[in-house]
């Protein structure tokens, strides 16, 4: 019987890098932090706000995202968008993911 703690540890390990790829893919259309949190959750990439907000800034610092302040609405919102570099990384990571997916299929097919 798999206990919850063991399961969640391994799930976390497996999903660790996927949030970055998901962000880079979603932010090809500009969006702001809180909306992204919601979008990610609905797309099946549950992530905590206190993980996502610093992550967005880190990706921005690495040049993978660009940002713009939108002050048209009542609240000023920082809109992030995937940069060209970010797009490149997203393509590479997506290919990696596909290769992993194929590799897993092979493993499971053989067993």
């Amino acid at each position, binding site marked *: 019987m798999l206990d919850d703690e063991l399961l969640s540890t391994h799930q976390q390990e497996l999903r660790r890098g996927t949030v970055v790829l998901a962000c880079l893919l979603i932010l090809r259309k500009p969006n702001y932090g809180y909306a992204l949190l919601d979008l990610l959750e609905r797309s099946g990439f549950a992530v905590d*706000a*206190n993980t996502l907000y610093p992550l967005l800034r880190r990706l921005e610092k690495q040049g993978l995202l660009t940002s713009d302040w939108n002050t048209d609405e009542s*609240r000023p919102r920082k809109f992030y968008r995937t940069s060209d570099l970010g797009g490149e990384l997203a393509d590479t990571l997506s290919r990696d993911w596909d290769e992993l997916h194929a590799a897993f299929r092979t493993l499971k097919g053989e067993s």
Partner: protein
Amino acid sequence: MTATATTSLTDRYIEAILRRVPSRQRPDIERELRTSIADAVDDRLEAGADPAEAEVAVLTDLGDPARLAAGYADRPLHLIGPALFLDYTRLLSALLITVVPAVAAVVGLLRAVDGDGASSVAGDAVGAALTAALHVTFWTTLLFAVIERVPSAKLPARRWTPTALPEPTARRTRYAELIAETVATVLFTALILLSPMLRFETDASGDPIGALDPWLWDTRVIYIFVGLLITSLSMAFTRYYARASAPLAIGRAAADVATGLTLIWIATNDHILNPAFVEAAGWSSGVRTWINGVVVAVCIASLISAVFTGLRDYRKR
């Protein structure tokens, strides 16, 4: 929109974050975080939550501001990370096993030369060792914690190669044993030969009273004993560097046995402690009997060990 009390809760949260991030990031983080919190609170209000509860819930979800701020500032949440940890423990243990005994020995020696009592010598040596250990640990830890936090300061990455593997335990342990034996013999011999000069106790005219029986010097037995100790040590060196052989094993065992028997003979004839010293120190005569007994017991144990070592050497031949 929201009550004053709850607004101040958000303000306090944001304040706690901003305190912990670099000042040039502050305005940007504040604007973004304020909007994010307000959006999250609005969502909860729309879902029918009580305003105060909504704010508390949102801030609770965001969690400890120190943790979130560390995320913003890209600061590690550990003192020394995995990249440095091995270097840290290696340096720390190397310093602890060298510096601490050295400091204790130097301080003990200086106090002994000053002619302090045995208890003050031991006390000062232990105190100095503890202080040295604290300093070594603190400064080493601080150094590594700083390296961990300075982005450009990285230790030169040393590639690990199999040549760095420790030597087989047997040889390494034997080397450590040899070093320990050398240090112990040198210290012990020095202590014996210096003992008439050490001012643990003094007589009426202020001259030091030696702890060991002057009979040992009068009869020159002490020089025979020291000679045996040195022979024993040189046998240990020969055994380490030369190929094991039967004559060598017998020679070593003979030196060890001779040393042990000499000491037993001295102890059973009650020629270890100087009676004048025992009297000056105010010890009862029972102490002499007791010390003689301990010496004999230790000698018997070392004789047994010498026989076993001899047998082991012989079998390895």
